[in-house]
Every structure is written in C-alpha cells, then in structure tokens.
C-alpha cells in the first residue's frame, strides 16, 4: 500500500456516516488472512487501492455496463462457485443495488451459500444523485432538487431486518465506525461455518 493511499484513507477516518475508505479497511482486516474473493470490484475503488491482490480470483470485476442490480445476485453466484474451493467470498453491497433483487438473500440462506455482505448503505441511488446535480448545473437549475426520486430514505430501509427476515444472519445499521470491526468478525465466523451473513453500515455517498 502506497504511503499516499494510506494518508488518503485516513482522512475522515472517524466520520459518521462511515467513510468508504474506512469501510474497506475494516473489511480487509477480516479478509487478509483468508483465501479471499471480492465478488464485485472496480478500478479506482478503495478495494483496488488498499487491498493487495495476488490471486486471479481476488477481484471478479463488475457488470460491464454500470447496471444497477447486478451486484447482489452476482455475489451470491460467486459465493456458490467459491463454496467448495475454500475461498471466502465478500461483497461491498450498495443499498440501491440490493433492492433490485433482495430475494437473493433468501436464496443464499436456503442453499447455505457462505457470502459476507457488507452494506455500502448511502441511502440513495447515489450515482443518480450526482448525475442529476450535474444536469441541474448544466441547465441552470437548483441543485437541492437532485435528491427527489434518487434517495432511499424516509423511511430508511433496515437491511439487517431485511436479511434476517429471509434467514440470513445480520447486524446493523452501524453508524459508529468503531463498531464495524467486531461486527465483521462475528459475520466472518458465520460465513466460515457455511452460512451467509450481512452487516449493514451507513456510509458516505461514495
């Protein structure tokens, strides 16, 4: 890890909502001693910057089309494929993406598919928030309307309950970054027993 990357990740380390750098550093801390796989990965992400990949299966890439709704089912599929190989599969799961096909949590529970899901819960379709801000600027309109129809709040979704309702071990929502590490350790123990687990973390936008 480059010194410059470490320093960048340290900024907003104790922030709440949790910084995406902190989220990935905490997840790396529980994966680093495992034969690991991140089921969805993108260049420029904190995982790519902070995690040293040494195996071809470490980073599985992305949908290829920036489509929303790909990550959750793809992660369950990756975990199923990795199940008999002794590979611990994890995913940083965006909230908006999960809501396209939340039933995959039941599939993971039903078939005992060991997937460690960590919610990147920014309570929005955040790509759309930023896009509408750009469009507002382009058309000389107000920015503060960009959240209309692009956020997932009022009410907030309780992803731990959503997972638990489908038979998946889950904790959260976590807003204190100090509580992420212990929750991930508990979740990893569940996954290593062959079951799916989900930790809901309320995060910064991106």
């Amino acid at each position, binding site marked *: 890890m480059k010194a410059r990357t470490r320093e960048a990740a340290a900024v907003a380390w104790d922030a709440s909502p949790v910084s995406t750098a902190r989220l990935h550093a905490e997840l790396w801390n529980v994966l680093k001693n495992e034969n690991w796989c991140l089921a969805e990965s993108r260049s420029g992400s904190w995982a790519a910057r902070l995690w040293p990949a040494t195996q071809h299966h470490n980073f599985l890439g992305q949908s290829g089309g920036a489509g929303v709704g790909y990550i959750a089912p793809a992660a369950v599929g990756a975990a199923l494929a990795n199940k008999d190989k002794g590979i611990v599969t994890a995913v940083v799961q965006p909230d908006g993406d999960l809501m396209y096909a939340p039933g995959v949590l039941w599939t993971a529970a039903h078939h005992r598919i060991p997937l460690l899901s960590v919610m990147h819960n920014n309570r929005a379709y955040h790509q759309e928030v930023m896009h509408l801000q750009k469009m507002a600027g382009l058309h000389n309109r107000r920015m*503060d309307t960009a959240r209309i129809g692009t956020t997932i709040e009022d009410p907030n979704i309780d992803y731990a309950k959503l997972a638990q309702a489908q038979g998946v071990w889950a904790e959260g929502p976590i807003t204190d970054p100090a509580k992420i590490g212990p929750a991930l350790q508990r979740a990893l123990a569940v996954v290593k027993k062959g079951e799916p687990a989900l930790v809901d973390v309320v995060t910064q*936008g991106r």
Partner: protein
Amino acid sequence: MKWIFLLVVGTASAQDAPTGDVKRGHAAFLKYQCYTCHGTVGQGAERGAGPKLAPNPFPWAGFEFQVRTPRQDMPAYRKQHLPDQDLADIYAYVRSIKPSPAASAIPLLKSD
C-alpha cells in the same frame, strides 16, 4: 525571495476570504449537497466522484472560481441558486475542518 512571495500570497488569500459562519456553512454544505461528491467532512470520494477539499482548502479566489465556473465534472453553482453569503459560509466551514489522524497512527492502515 520565493518564501516571501508565498507568504504574501497566503496572507492576501486569507484576507480576501469573506466573513462566513462555520455553523451556517456546515448546514449550507449539506443543503447544497456539496457532500454528495466531496463527503460530509470534505474528504473526497472514491472512483472520481469529487476531490478532497479539506483540511487546508485552496485559497478563496480559486474556491469561488471553481464553484461558479467549474472545471471538469462539477456542476456550476450560480448566484441565483447559491448566494454569495452562503458560499462564504461554506468556505468558512471547509476551512474549519480539522485534519484527521495520521495514517501512521491508525493500526488498520499500517498492515498490507
């Protein structure tokens, strides 16, 4: 000579910044959704969403210029939608943001 020049520029930049209120600036930073790309404490975001703003933001003149007539992906915040005083308050907030702990003081950032 170079150091004298930098000192003069730095002093002028600080003096040029309009008076702003940190508390109102924090509220405006959220209201105008600066945080969606730059983070709630100006830390910036991954995958090119927005650069780090704090601590030590660039001088007022450059800050204002970028907000009003931005380069690259940032949308323009014009005066009819972001009044001068609100922008001054936002700058006061961004300048008030304290540095985070050094990476060397964070155990999780020491390991590879």
